[in-house]
Each structure stands twice: as C-alpha cells, then as structure tokens.
C-alpha cells in the first residue's frame, strides 16, 4: 500500500477554480457555525453542570433571537444559492465554437468519437486550453460522465442526448469515472481523459483516423438506408430538405415551432410520427432499433454538416461537405 493521503483533488479545468472558490466559502460558513455550536454547547454543558449549577433558571423563548438565527443563515445561504446557480448555469451552456466530440456509453465502457473519425474506448484525448463539448448518449442504462479534476459531471441517458463541456487547463492524465450506478461492473467503467498540448494533440489526431470522418460515415449511412429517396432536397420530394436545417426553427403539423437541435434530429429518425413537419405526410417509417447509437451520431454529424446552399446529397465520391477539421470548425 502506497501511503498517500490526498486531501484535495487536482484543479485542471476552467470550472475547477470557480467550483473550489464556492466550496471554500461553504467550508468557511459551515466551519464557523459548527465551531460556534460545538463551543457553545460544550461551554454551557461545563459551566452549568449540575454539581456547579443545581438550580436552573427558567426562561421563555426570545423573538429577536429566533428572528436573528433564522434570517442570518437565510441570508448566507442565499449567497450560496446565487453563487452556485451562476456556476451551474455556465456549466450547462457550452460556449460557441467548442470542439465537438460524441460519446456513447454502455455497460460498462465509454466510446468516444471525434469528428475526424478517431474512435477511442475508455480514453479521451483533448487539447489543453480549448473548449470541448461532448454530446452523449447511452445504449442501455443511465451512466454519468464524471471527471473530478474538471469538477464536471453529467448523467448520460438512454434515448436522449445530454451535453457537457469543459476547458482543460493543465496537460496530464485525469480520472474518468462513471458516477451513476449502472450494474455489475460499474466500478470498472472508468477511463482516462488525456489532456495534451495543441501540437501533440495535432500529432495524435493525424494518427489513427482510418475510417473516414464522422460526417462522411453518416453520408454513407444516409445512402445505405435510402434516406435520400425522400430527403432529396428538391421541390416535390416527399421528405423535408435537410440542408441547412440544423439550428433552425421548424414548424410542425400541430402548428408549433421547434428548433432543429441534436435531440430533434434524433427523435425524427427513431420516432418520426411524433414530429411531422408542417405540410408533409406522416409516411416515414420508424428507425427505432435499426440504427445503432453510433450510427445515429454519424447521421447527426452528417446532417449538421449540410449547409443551406449546397445540395443535400452531393455526388458520390465528393469530399465530405463543410469543414470537418476540428480546428477550424464552427458549430452552429
């Protein structure tokens, strides 16, 4: 047994400092009140012990005291609330232009897919000093993506995308844990986040991407599933045009508008009957259970990569549309 007694985790993301600052405020307030109560109780217990103080002095309550010890803690805790909520809000709003990576979790492993086509299992390579955004989904039960050194955590749900973002500040290798109990090998569902200097990250990127970019694979799947017979992108096609769709509002049959985000596109593939676009017939069959989560992510990446001006289905063999090189890519 190595005798190490760590008391404080690494701070390796922009969020870590903010969380720790609030943590120290909380520690200070709670330490103060703990000591206050312990000392008072002990002092009274000793000073008024029965052998020294046999006759108690009866008293009623005291309204000013009751008000004071309700209002002061309330005020202090409202500071905690506002402070904590503002951090939480930042955690839940990924900044624009973040490097997009996809994650699929299953019992009991993590799979990461980079836009260039690199795939990793239980390891995630990211560059230092760059916002990274993960769009995550689970194939089976609920998992939770947790990197203690980054102070971020987000449950990964089956059937629905969740996102998390961080900006690593120190190169190194950090624990990745599954934090939501997920069955037999829950404690084995661990991995590493490897934070690299940008130059090294470039070298790593140019390494193993053998199977084409995510969007290109999505394009292939799009054709294999014959999506392009209906989503042709010209007038009179039976399905809506997908070019430039991502991030835009869509009017549905019931008259309501929704924004075509990750979840909308996924739902429209696996459960098309629920979100039929205004002016179209509900003829699309469901693809529930027919496309793997990774396949869905490839389709998603492909649809995101389509820009409005281009045709929906470029000639076979053409370069994958839009810039998919992460360094220059702007997510919409």
């Amino acid at each position, binding site marked *: *047994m190595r005798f190490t007694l*760590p*008391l404080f*985790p690494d701070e390796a993301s922009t969020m870590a400092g*903010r*969380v720790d600052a*609030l*943590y120290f405020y*909380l520690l200070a*307030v*709670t330490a103060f009140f*703990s000591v206050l*109560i*312990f000392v008072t*109780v002990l002092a009274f*217990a000793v000073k*008024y*012990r*029965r052998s020294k*103080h*046999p*006759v*108690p*002095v*009866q*008293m009623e*309550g005291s309204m000013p*005291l*009751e008000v004071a*010890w*309700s209002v002061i803690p309330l005020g202090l*805790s409202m500071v*905690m*609330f506002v402070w*904590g*909520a503002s*951090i*939480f*809000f930042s*955690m839940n709003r990924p900044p624009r232009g973040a490097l997009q990576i996809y994650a699929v979790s299953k019992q009991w492993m993590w799979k990461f897919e980079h836009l260039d086509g690199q795939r990793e299992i239980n390891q995630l390579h990211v560059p230092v000093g760059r916002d990274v955004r993960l769009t995550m989904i689970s194939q089976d*039960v*609920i998992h939770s993506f947790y990197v*203690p050194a980054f*102070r971020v*955590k*987000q*449950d990964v*749900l*089956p*059937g629905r995308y969740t996102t998390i973002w961080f900006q690593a500040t120190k190169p190194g290798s950090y624990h990745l844990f*599954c*934090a*939501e*109990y997920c*069955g*037999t*090998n*829950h*404690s084995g569902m661990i991995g590493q986040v490897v934070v690299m200097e940008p130059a090294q990250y470039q070298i790593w990127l140019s390494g193993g991407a053998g199977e084409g970019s995510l969007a290109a694979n999505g394009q292939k799947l799009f054709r294999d599933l014959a999506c392009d017979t209906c989503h042709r992108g010209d007038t009179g096609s039976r399905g809506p045009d997908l070019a430039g769709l991502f991030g835009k509002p869509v009017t549905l049959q019931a008259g309501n508008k929704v924004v075509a985000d990750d979840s909308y596109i996924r739902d429209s593939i696996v459960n098309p009957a629920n979100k039929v676009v205004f002016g179209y017939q509900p003829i699309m069959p469901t693809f*529930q259970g027919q496309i793997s989560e990774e396949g869905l992510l490839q389709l998603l990446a492909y649809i995101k990569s389509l820009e409005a001006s281009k045709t929906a289905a470029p000639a076979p063999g053409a370069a994958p549309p839009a810039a998919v090189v992460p360094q220059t890519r702007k997510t919409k």
Partner: protein
Amino acid sequence: MSVAPQAAESRTHYLNADYGIRSWLLTTDHKRIALLYLVTVTLFFAVGGFLAVLIRLELLTPVGDLVSSDTYNRMFTMHGITMVFFFLIPSVPTVLGNFLIPMMIGAKDMAFPRLNLASWYMLLAGGAITLYSLVTGGIDTGWTFYAPLSTTFSNTHVIPAAVGILIAGFSSIFTGLNFIVTIHRMRAPGMTWFRLPLFVWAHYAASLIMVLGTPVVAITLVMVALERGLHIGIFDPRLGGDPILFQHMFWFYSHPAVYIMILPSMGVVSELVACFARKRVFGYPFVAFSSLAIAVFGFLVWGHHMFVSGQSVYAAMVFSLLSFLVAIPSAVKVFNWTATLYKGSIAYNTPMLYAFGFIGLFTIGGLTGLFLASLGVDVHVTDTYFIVAHFHYIMVGGVVMGYLGGLHFWWPKISGRLYPEGFAKLAALIIFVGFNLTFFPQFILGYLGMPRRYHAYPEEFQVLNVMSTAGASVLAVGYLLPFAYLLWSLRYGPVAGPNPWGAKGLEWETPSPPPTFNFDHPPVVVEEAYAYHGGQEDDVVA
C-alpha cells in the same frame, strides 16, 4: 434514589398482564406492539449492519478481492433497503412513538389498536419478502431502483423486493394515519396542542409525510414491477418512456422520507435536552412549528437529487432555492436546543450524551447538506462519497443517535429496569468516536472524486478508506454493547421507579412498567410540557 422503587413483580402491568406467545402476537396494546417492533427493527438493523461491515471490509483494499462485484452490488443494495425501509423509517416512530405517544397525551391506547397490530404484520411480511429476495439471489439495483436498470437490465429479484417495500410502505402509511388520529382525537382533558411534548409534535409532522408521501413511492414501485414484468414502456426509453420520470416519482417520497427518519429523532432530543438540563425547551412554539415547516417544505425539494440527471436547468434552480429554505427550520431547532442549555442544570446521563452526539453530528450532516443544495458544488460531489458521508451523518449520526438516546431514556419505563450507566456511557463514547472515524474521511474521499457504489477504486483513495473501515469496526463494537447490556438489564438491572430521571411528562406519572391501559386514573393536564421548576425536588438521580 430518593423514591423507593416498588417491586415491579408485585403488581400487574402490561408485561405480566398476560403470558404466552398468543398474548403477544394478537395483542392490541400499543406498548406490546412497540416491543414487537423493537425486536423486528433490531433484527433488520443487525442484517443491515452486518452487510455494512462486509462492505467496509471489501473497501479495505483498492481491488475488489473479498467478494465479486455482483456480490458487492447486492450487499450495498440490501444494506440500503433494509436500513432505510426496515430500520430507519420505522425505528423511532414504531418503537418509541408507539410506546409513548398514547401515554404522553394521556390516552389508553392508539386510536386504532388493531390497525396498529396489522401495521406490524405488514412490516414483518414486507421484510420477509424482501429478505426472501436476498436469500434467493439478491437484488443489485441499489436501494434507489433507478430505471431502466431496475426495469429492464438487472436480472436479479427486483419484483419481490419492490413488493416487500410496497407492503412495508403501507405499514408506514397506517402507522402515520394512526398517530395523526390519535394526536387529534385521543388527548386527555387539558392537553392542548401547546402543552404537547415536542416529541408528539415531531411525530405528528413525520406522520403527515408518511400519509402524503408513501403512497407515491408505492404506486411507483407497482409501475416498476409492471414495467419489468410486461415491458409496457412506462420508464423504458426504447418504448417511449422517460427514466427521469421515475426519479421524480421516487424522490417525491424518498426525499421527504429523510424527514420521516430525522423528525422523530429530533423529537427525542427535545425531550432529552429538556429533562437533563431541567429546563423547558427554549422557544417551544418555534421548535414545534419548525417540525411542521420541515414536513411541508420537505416536499418541495426532491429535485436536488437530480441536478445532473438531465432535469431542466430551471427546475434545478427552483429546487436548489427551496432546498436552502428547508435548511432554516433545521437550524432553528439546533439553535433552540443550544439555548435551552443556557443556565440549565445539566446532568451527563447516557441519554444526554446521545443528545449531545446528535446535536454535533446533525450539525455537520445538516451543514454539509448546504454543499449539496449549492448547484455548482453539487455537480462535483453528487454520487460520490461526499453524499454517502452526508446522509450517514444525518441518518446514523442523527437518527440512530436519537433512537439510542431515546431507548436509554425510556428503557426504565419500557422494562422497569435501569441499564448499567457506566457501560452505557462507554458505548455512547465508542459510537461517537467510531462514527466520526468511519464517515468523516468519506467527505474528503467525496471531494477527491471517489464515486459511490464502487467495488474497486483507484489506489490513491486507500488510506482514507482504511481509516473509514477502522472506524466501522469501532462502530460495530459500539452497537453491540447496548444490545448486550440492555438484555442483561432486563434481568439484573436495578428496579426503576416510575420516574428515575425526575422528568416531566405524563408517561413519567404512571408506574414503570405501565399498566395495560397506561394510567390507573385518567390523567387531567393542568400545566405546560417541561414545567421544570428548578428546585432539588426534581432531582431524583444524583
């Protein structure tokens, strides 16, 4: 002792009024039912405690070497289920509450004595079915039964465990119902609401939660069983269901359930502090109403278990704000107990030591709750050992301390005998030290990022885990001691008089052990609770 204790054997009381197994299994006397519960919850505590020891032994080393991960998962699941549903929730209300509330309000029995007995049978049946799932292979979903793990993916005995908890839930509902009706309708003449002991107020508040919250978890478990048996899509995302909905329904009950556990213990502490400081409780109405405030606000905060679950960001913010509000009435209680000590005349009997322990540990447990209500910090520490430490400080440091304090305090009333004070003080000390050694390191582990429910863990967490396991073994010794000396005292303990502590309250005005219908003469109440006057006349135990 200044009052000559009358020999318990020479008169008829609830223990010797009737003999034989039938007289116990068919009794409708709330005091006998309380003893049936005492035996039952002690049994479940032993099962849960044994599993806790195994869990801590496994975590002595970073690798999973003592048991397989499947076994480990079954152990912590069963530890959670037995401790929460079959020990902590019933403990104080069904043992101490059942025994004392009719006496404290001057009634002959609970409002529905047969329902009271039926509730015990329900707890027993629910426990038996749950233990059946343990011996036939166990269940590995965690006590929280999160879907879709519990509904689709686990291949363990989820349905029997759910059914067992459902039945135990109805035991709890009927207990709460019985308390509320008893407190409303059975009070002795002169026993107004503001003369009620705070113990009764606390149980009233806890009973509200039992009646209003438990049915929701009951129907949720029915749906889990249906989903598991029929795959109808209520919580299965592949069929259009939403697993987050399960979490909402589960925590709607299971968060307030924490207050079902802690409120009755808070009631115990109010009694102990008043008696051993010889003072009326400072700010009685504030302490009383804070119980009700906790019961009501406790229902509005369940979403703080779900900050990283994929719940709406805005819902999370509302739940966070409300969670801070529920902290205030708890703080008010602690401050009032502290103020009660001021200029009191404080004796250090064992129950008072447990009350001190409760105040200290509950303070830490409650204040660390603020970390979890703060959204930004909760994201980091939720589902880690920080949570585990926090709720053990509340549930073990709070509830069990209160339960043991109350058990010692009323033991003379229950059994007619005094426990050995020296051993009892030693045990209280051992439990306090062992508890802190077990659970304080877990706060640090949690902030370092060690997730809960891990069978194996990275090496750098080992030292803290070894400390925790060492503490657990101390704690285990601490819990075995009362078990031994309380049994011993049944036969060899000095005979207690009706009021060995010089305490106020109707239960102390009747002999120990009390007669079957509690009072030889129907009491009439003429003064407030805790009418300690300060003279030596109250001072029975030197």
